[in-house]
């Protein structure tokens, strides 16, 4: 029973770690939403967090509008 519990715990931890790692990697490469097919269109423009500022190198600047 002990061994089965340990193996199952390790599998669960591995699943969670892999999922978190994928989300972090996506975030670092500018993908705002995991797996989104359009996410890489403009990495610096649409961030997942409202607290990240928009870089002016992608898309029109405010002055252009």
């Amino acid at each position, binding site marked *: *029973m002990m061994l*089965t*519990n340990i193996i*199952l*715990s390790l*599998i*669960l931890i591995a*699943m*969670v770690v892999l*999922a*978190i790692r*994928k*989300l972090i990697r996506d975030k670092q490469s500018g993908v*705002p*939403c*995991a*797996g*989104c*097919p*359009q*996410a*890489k*269109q*403009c990495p610096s*423009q*649409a*961030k*997942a*967090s*409202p607290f*990240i500022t*928009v870089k002016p190198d*992608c*898309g*029109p*600047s*405010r002055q*252009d*509008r």
Partner: protein
Amino acid sequence: MKIALAGNPNSGKTTLFNAITGHIEHVGNWAGVTVAKKEGDLKPELNPTASPLRIIDLPGAYSLSPFTSEESITSQFVQQEQPDVIINIVDATSLNRSLFFTTQLLELGIPVVVALNKSDLLSKKDITIKVDLLADRLHCPVVETVSLDHTGLAELIEQAIRHSDQRQSAPFQGVSIDQITNKPLAEKNDRARFRFVDRLVEQVEKRAISSRQQTRQDAIDRIVANRFLGIPIFALVIYLVFSISQSWLGPWLADTFVGWIDQVYELVDSLIGSDVTPFLRSLMLDGIIGGVGAVVGFLPLIMVLFFLLALLEDSGYMARVAVVMDRYFKKVGLSGKSIIPMIIGTGCAIPGIMATRTIKNERQRRTTAMLTPFMPCGAKLPIIALFAGVFFEDAAWVGTTMYFAGIAIIILGALIVQRITREAPGRSFFLMELPEYRWPSLKRAFMSMMARAKAFIVKAATIILLCNAAIQLMQTFNWQLQLVEEGMQHTSILATIASPFAIVFIPLGFGVWQLSAAALTGFIAKENVIGTLAVVYGISNFIDTEEFVLISGAADVAAVMGLTSVSALAYLMFNLFTPPCFAAIGAMNAEMESAKWLWAGIGFQLGMGYSVAYVVYQVGSLITQGHLGTGWLAGLIVVLGFLGLLIGLMLRPTKHQLGLKEAA
């Protein structure tokens, strides 16, 4: 070496980009699909050089003038990043309109190669182009291409590489780009450029059919884009899409698919055995496999729906929908361009909100970004499918109604924002090129569907998996970190967090902590609503494998949730019309560029979702049961408070009126 792809909207740039790089970027048979640049490496089999070639796909532009935002991306890129060569994609069937931009590109001093794209359509339209003469007059190579079947692409790349270090002289020399900001001078220059292009086209192009003649396409457009018939036709099309995806083909496929998920569940169950701790067993089977499986079970329905929507888009129909909706949007102070983000938003709200950047007017752009999430996105489709299947016999009308309810809320919301901001209704012009109708490509629709399916699976394996694991843990333990005993689920961490919200939802017909918890996790990702319902109610799949219909087993699921069809509809609408996921709120923030607008938008979405759900539940209860639902008075106070706030904002005196009062 960098090669930029530039050309008019809907000239086939992204199709060509996909063909030469092997990428699967979203394409559509209408203008405005690409709103930002995309990059990729040229396929090795097309690259004769040893070094990698970088291809940059730029958004469509009619000119290099920085007066419009989408054009400024292209303008800024070609001027500041200086690609080694520009491939100018020209729609061969619209030479007159396309060459204006070509002549501007040729003035930049960067080598240009013209791709005369869609040249297969020339013979169908009885158009002849003297390609050699055109190349001679433009002073640059011209290659006939068909991006769809890869014709001429190898030669195009070869010409681009060969001419990358050669100087070309511009056939027309206008004012410099820096002087384009002088509007009268720019207009005079544009007129001269148009005259040059007209003369050039007269020399190189011969049309057997005058563009003034009415074609079969014009006849179809008179019906499809008709002011009276346009909306009913659109409703019928959406109804058919939902019928096929959620009543006929989708459930049949889903049924088989869910059978496989059940087999995985049973396999893992047998592997784990009975020796393992109940907590770990429950976390693995109910939390992760059950929760994620319940969401993934809807994948076939979503794939069929996206396949059909991709076919519609590829056929050219969606551009007609934009034209049909334009007249209604203008009346409520939105730009005609607002429809484009909303159509894109039916796939995912994030690119839809991003597409609002093409709207020049700041108020219209912010209003569109605020209202775009009201269109049901792909993540909300499993929720629609679940509730339509479980609570309503005919699933198709539910999805169609949700789309049109979304449009109605957008129109109402735009009207309210217009009244609050007091912006005088100005004349709005929306010019959108109507693409040719064509038989949609099954391959492109399939690729589009697979891209979305992959996105759905990745999301399920990451965000949904983590959320379901967290929900299972929070449901298993109480605040003393002790296992919750049977029958004491209301003491769990999850229940104690969700219960205060459940009180607020009593007037909406779903005042139980399980449904509240599901609605709250929906703000992380809307698919979580399904996953959380599966975990908290212990339902491993919502699609019965025993019978080949989605609605089988519905009574059991409905009984477990304790919802009536009216409260289920209210719950569905609450989840669809309250604020979108956090990622979409982030995109709203980026495009609105105003904290005041962002919080006002979130507040409006919350108030609207709550009010719609309240009206649906209370009116529905009155009709079906003959009396109002529980908590009607408390809910009425909240809804009237929201309405009062909106009316107060609409009627508040303006700064100008306040100034007059003080002067008096």
